Structures are given as C-alpha cells and as structure tokens.
C-alpha cells in the first residue's frame, strides 16, 4: 500500500468562493504525508475530472458550500465513469444536509464530512479507505 504516496485532488467545484475549508484540508493532508493538488476555485466537473485523470490521483475530495452538491457530485462521478477512471474514489464535505448524505452515497460518493469534522478524522478515513492505485 505504501509503495507510493497517496495522491489526492482537493477540488472546489461551483461558483462559491468559500475556500477556507478546502485549503485547510489540503494542508492537513499534505502534513499527513500525502501529495495534494488543489484545483483552485470555480471549477466545472469537467475541469476537475480532467485534472484528476491528468494528475493520476487516487481520490478526489470535493468541497461544496453552495447547496449545489446534489448536482455536482453526481456530475463528477458520471464523468469519471465516462473516462474509465471510476477507480478514483470521490469524497467530500461542506454544507450538506444529513438527508442528502445517503442519497449521495447511493450515487457513488464514498464519504461525506460535515461541519465540525476534524482534519484528523478525514486523514484517518483516507488512510483506511483509499488504497494507492498501482
């Protein structure tokens, strides 16, 4: 598993500019020894998937505060499938109501972290659930 460092794309889809969480997560994952690529703001699902494939990442973490999660998570997962890159796991966090979490998981999102989750919880979850791809 530890053949190479985990590569994680932290992505900020949608139009909102709330990047405090995304940047803190990116730093925390880097501090935990992962290779982290942060997309910057205002990314379309197409831009995110293209970056994920090009950078050959193991997982994508999406940060969404705008309420558009029910649109954006499925769009990313569908595009990954289309690129035959559905072994890239998708997780995320942000302002996501509890009721939406099972619906997102049913659509292929691996995990959702809501406000108050610690960066250590997220690091631990990634280490336990995301295998480095060959």
């Amino acid at each position, binding site marked *: 598993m530890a053949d190479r460092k985990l590569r994680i794309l932290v992505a900020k889809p949608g139009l*909102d500019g709330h990047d405090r969480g995304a940047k*803190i997560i990116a730093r925390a994952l880097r501090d935990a020894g992962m290779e982290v690529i942060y997309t910057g703001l205002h990314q379309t699902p197409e831009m995110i998937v293209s970056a994920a494939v090009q950078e050959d990442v193991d997982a994508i973490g999406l940060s969404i505060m705008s309420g558009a999660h029910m649109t954006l998570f499925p769009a990313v997962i569908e595009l990954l499938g289309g690129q035959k890159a559905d072994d890239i796991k998708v997780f995320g966090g942000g302002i996501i109501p509890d009721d939406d979490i099972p619906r997102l998981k049913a659509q292929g999102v691996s995990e959702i972290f809501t406000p108050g989750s610690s960066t250590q919880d997220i690091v631990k979850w990634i280490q336990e659930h995301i295998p480095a791809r060959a």
Partner: protein
Amino acid sequence: MAKSAKKVTLSKVKAKKPAAKKAVSKKAVSKKAPPALTYDAATVKRLTAEVARWRKSTLSRSLEKMPTRRAQFVNDSGIPLPDVFTQADRKGERLEDLGLPGEFPFTRGTQPTMYRSRLWTMRQFAGFGGPADTNKRFKYLIAQGMTGLSTAFDMPALMGYDADHPMSRGEVGKEGVAISTLKDFEILFEGIKLDEVTTSMTINASAIIALCMYIAVAEQQGVPMSRLGGTIQNDMLKEFIAQKEWIVGPRPAVRIVTDMIEFCAKHMPKWNPVSISGYHIREAGATAVQELAFTIADGIGYVEEGVKRGMNVDDFAPRLSFFWDVHNDFFEEVAKFRAARRMWAKIMRDRFGARDPRSLMLRTHAQTAGVSLTAQQPYNNVARVALQAFAATLGGTQSLHTNSLDETYALPSEDAVTIALRTQQIIAHESGADRVVDPLAGSYYVEHLTDEMEARAFDYLRRIDEMGGIIRAVEEGFPQKEIGESAYRYQREVEEGDRLIVGVNAFKSATDRSNIELLKIDEQVAREQVERLQAVKASRDQGQVSAALAKVEAACRDERVNLMPPVLEAVKAYATLGEVSDVFRKVWGQYREGGIF
C-alpha cells in the same frame, strides 16, 4: 505577530522621545504643550506601587493555593493579556485619543447621542429562490419590525452568469436570490416603495449591473436615483483577498468600483457606493487584527483611486461605509470597532487631508460571525449570536445583521431568522445597551486592546505601503497568505484542544444534531428562472440591446468614460446580467486564481 507589534510600540515610543539624548528631547518637547493625559502622574505612581504590593501579597498567596489555568492568557488575535489592568497600565493614554462621541477621532462613536436618538438599523440579509420568494421574505421581515432591506444574490448573479449558463448548474437561487434581468428586479421589489426603505445589496463583481437595475426599478416607480438610500457592497479588493467571487482581475475591477463611487458622488447623495468589508476577510480565517488591517487598507486603496482620478476627497469619502464581522471574543470585538473609527479618522485627516467631518467618520454595518456557528447543538448558536450582537452594539455599530441558528446547515428558515431578529430587539429594548454612549470606554482593558489593535493594524498598513499599496499586495497574495496561516492555526488549536468550542471539542452530547427545520430550494426555481429569462430575451428589442452593449464595451476600453451610464442604458433595454458581464470578460479576460494553499 506578537513580535512585529512589539516593534511598533517601541518605534512609536522612540519617535516621541528617543531613549538617548534625553536632554535634547526634553527641550524639544517643552516647546510644545505636552498632550493632556487621562491619568495624572501621581495616580499612576500610586497605582504602580499598589499593584506591586498586591502582587507580592494577595496575588502570590492566592497563586500558591490556586495556580492559573494557563501559563499565559492571550486573546483571539494572539495579544498577550496580563491578569489585571489598572490606571498604571494606561499611563500614556491621551485624552485626545479618546475624544468625545461625535468628535474626532470618533473613538467613542460617530454620533454624539448614538442609540439614545436612533437605534441601530436592524437589517437581516435575505435572498433565496426566485425573486418572488425573496420579495415575500422581505415583506415578512418588514412586518416583523425590520428597518432596512438587505439582499443576498445567488452565485451565478455574483459571478456574472445568467441562470441558463452551464456554470450556473445547480446554483440558481441556492445561496441568494436568482437575478438575470431587470424583470427579476421588478419582481424582487414589487410592492416595496424604494424611497421609503433603505436597501443593502451584497454584490460585488456584478455590482454595477445590480445598482443600475435598482435605479431602473426606482425610475419605474417614479423615484429618482437622487432619493435612493442604501448600500451596495461593491468591495472588490476583499473579493480577491477573501470572498473570491470575481469576473475580471483586480485592476479593471477596481476601476469599475471607482466609476461607481464617482457616479454616486454626483447623482446619488444618499447612496453608499462601497461597503468596505472586513466580514469576509474574517470569515476566511483572519484574526480581528488582520480583519481591521486589511479592511482599512482596502479603504485606503479606494480613496487613493478616487483621488488619483482627480476627485476631491471630501466629495466622495463621506459615503464610504464599512462592514465588520463580530466574532466571539467580546472585548476584542468592542475594541476593534473603536480602533477602526480612530484609525480611519486619523488616516483620512492626515494622509488624505479630508476636512469634512463626515469623511473622517467610519460608519459601519456589522454581522455576527457565521463561521463561529456550530453544526453540533445548533440551538447554542442563539447564545453565540446574542453575545456577538451585544459586542457590536457596545462597539457602536450603525446597522446589524444577526445570524440564524441553522445557518451551518442551510439558508435560514423563517422561524430561525425571526429568533435572530428578536435577539436584536431584546438587546435594544431590554439589555440597556441603548442608554449610554460608548459604555465600555475607560475600561482599562478595552482601552488597552483598542490601542494594541490599532498599533498592530498600523504595522500591517506600513508593510502594505512598503509593498506598493493594497492592490499590489493583493496581486502578490500577501493578505491571502496571512489569512490562510491564521485559519490553519485556528483549526489546529481546535483540534489539539487548545481552544474549546462548546459542542464541538468539549461538552459534546449524544443528540448533537437537532431536528431543525431546513429551508430547501427546489430545482423548480432554476427552471422558472430560465423560462423567464428566455421570455425576456424573446420580447426585447435586440437591436437596442446590441447597441447598448456596444456602448458598454466602448466605455470599458476608455478609462475616461464612466461605465455607469452605458450599463444603466443596457439593463433598461433588458440586456442580461450575463451579457453585460460577458462584455467585461471580453475586454479584460476572465480572472482565475491559481490553486495555492
């Protein structure tokens, strides 16, 4: 942080009386009358001796039995705090630094009577769904006693996209009201007489379009723009620093802001064309000192641009207003409001030579800290909001928004927003906050913090000046990096348990997530928006729209032409928000920030 602030204090002292050459400095000082001090030398001496005695006896006996819980207490900006303050700690305090309410340097408030004459404006930010939904919420809030409107726009509107643009997928009406054309503005303000309310609009990159739509709706009601009162946020510098909603890059964005300042100075005497905002800077993770420093720096930036253009500072500075966040550290927040007023007064007088007292006066809106609300045990947020709101009023705010308890989950429900408004009404009518002006003045602690925050913020301003001004500093990412560091430090403190947040890393309970009712925005809103947009496009005079947009483009390309008149003409012809923004993008290019963290 602490290091640099120390430097400031030292250099300030040195500048007044250099340590060496005592005789010379004494002579120099004796030529001018020494500044009047709040506490005379005898009082300070007596207190110094008393404190020394107390430390040796009462305090040390107590510490043997009950050591302090921490070796060093610091406030939320990292300012170290001693156990107790007395007059002795205020020995240099000058009467002129405090002044009196309504007088320079306005430390004690912008008005002589403050809330004894007029309570602060209770202005709850609202906007969601389609314009008819928000119109209904406005009317509800007015019926509940709210005294000013405040409009939140959705992300597509803030970023200059129409509801049918691919970038708008999933975002229409979600974080604010959806707006694409003048038609939407007509619905938004239907039945509200625009000369009887003041309206605040939280919009920046596309602010010029929103303001023109507002002017056009007022005109339809028979209200001339000269009678419109309100505020448009329009603070692009803080967008690049913190909120990150933009269309074009910093320089053209600031040019548009300056056009609006200039236009409003001439035609809209009751309108605040920019609300220089610390709120988003703080929410992005800045400390209170950083919020103070970067916001004042942004204000300096706008004044410099106005002056560069040949405007007389007193012709536009009176309408510049501010917007602060109010976080949990009660005393620090009160001190921040006071320090901000004093700094702005000094800067406007000494740096820009403003003479009109209204130019020197920092008037402000405030909002409780969204970022301080917790998803866990959400009803606790009512207590946080009340404390923050109380600090804002004791700090002397002119206007206030209180957050709702459910905002970590979604936009506030009607019940939650009512509790938030009631919180302000309780403070206003039951707490006594309205009875005495600047009630915490003279508190050794609050006055110390006021001085300390001012000194630390001025240190940042000096560094920004050395970089060549705030626009340059923003282009270099300086404030952004400082804020990122603070945000990460805060998160670490919480995770390491060095900072306790009730319900998050302490006092957790099993029933963390209460069943609070959440406001959900139906996808139907987006469909209706797109349909209305298409209907408007089908019914308008296309030739007129194209001609108006061509004029906007010509004005973009010629710095001497003010953009307000052509944009007003374009929105009146029902050109869409996206179409006008596309002209900006065509001329100046879409701005993008790299993925730095």
